[in-house]
C-alpha cells in the first residue's frame, strides 16, 4: 500500500505590530478558535505549524497546514480578535514570498486607512 503524499498550503497573515505579546496572544486565540470551532480531532488533523521563512519580514506570520483543512484554518484566522489581514493562500514558499513582495506595495496605503 502506498501512502499518498500529503499536500500542504501556506497561509500568510499580516500583523500590524509584531511585538512578542501580540504574536503570542494571536496564536493562543487562533488555536483556541480552531479547536473550538472545528473540534480537537480536526485541529490535530490540520497539522498546523508556524514556520519561519527567511527574507519574509517579522510583520508576517506564515502558517503551514494540510490542504484538506485549509478552510478551517482560514476561518479561524479571520474570526480571531486581532487586527490581522489574511493574504491569499500559497502552495509553495516561493509563491508566498512573491505575494508578500506584492503586498508590500500596498502596505503604506493600508496602514493609512
Amino acid at each position, binding site marked *: 500500500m502506498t501512502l499518498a503524499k500529503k499536500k500542504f498550503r501556506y497561509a500568510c497573515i499580516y500583523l500590524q505590530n509584531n511585538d512578542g505579546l501580540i504574536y503570542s496572544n494571536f496564536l493562543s486565540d487562533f488555536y483556541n478558535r480552531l479547536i473550538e*470551532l472545528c473540534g480537537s480531532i480536526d485541529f490535530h488533523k490540520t497539522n498546523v505549524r508556524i514556520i519561519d521563512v527567511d527574507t519574509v519580514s517579522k510583520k508576517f506570520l506564515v502558517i503551514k497546514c494540510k490542504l484538506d483543512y485549509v478552510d478551517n484554518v482560514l476561518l479561524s484566522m479571520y474570526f480571531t480578535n486581532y487586527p490581522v489581514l489574511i493574504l491569499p493562500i500559497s502552495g509553495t514558499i516561493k509563491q508566498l514570498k512573491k505575494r508578500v513582495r506584492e503586498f508590500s506595495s500596498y502596505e503604506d496605503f493600508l496602514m493609512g*486607512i
Partner: protein
Amino acid sequence: MTIIKAIDLNINLFYSENLKNFLKNFFGIDVLGMRFDDDSFTAVTKKDNIVQRRNRGSPKSPKIGESKNEGFFFIGSVFKGNADENFHNVDVLTIKNQSNIKSLLKKYNGKNIGIEFLVSDVKYCNNHELGKWFYNMKWIYEMCKKYDFQFILSSGANMYCELISSKIFNTLLKKSDIDNKKYWSDLNIWLERKKRAGIFYDTS
C-alpha cells in the same frame, strides 16, 4: 460564456483606486458596494464595478443644476427585528437581528429585495454564537429562495482587517452548506437586473 464576478456590497471604508486595486488583485473582489460622501462619487473614474449605496431617506433625485452622472445606486436599510417597520422601496436590507425574519420575508414576498448579512457583525462573537450563525445562514438562504429574495453575504468591513477575500467568502458559504457557484451566479444576475431597472444610469 458569462463571467461571474465576486461581489462585496458593503465596505465601509473610504474609496480609493488603491483600495479597489488591492481588493481586485489580492482578494479577488471585482465589484464593491460603498457609501460616498456628497459629491465624492463623481470623482470615481470607472463606475462599472462600483455600486453606490445610500441609506433610505437620502434624496433620490439630484438637485437642480447638480450633475446627473451619478451612476447606479442602491437604497439600503437596516432590519433590527421589527417586521412592522416599512421597507418598501428598499433594494438591500441589512439584517442586524434575525428574530421575526420569517415574518419579514412573508410580508415582502416577491419584492426581489436583497437580504444582506454582514460577516463583521459576527467576527468578534464567541464560538457558540458563530456556530449558530452558520446554522442560520442555511435556512435563511432557503427561505430567501422560497420567497424570492436575494441572499447577500457582505463583509461590512469598517477596518482593513475586516476585509474578506473571495476565498474566505467561498469558505463561509461552504461551511453554511450553500453552493458558492450558485450563490455568485444568482447574485450577479440579481445585480445586473437591478442595474437594468436602476434608478439612475450614468449618462456620460
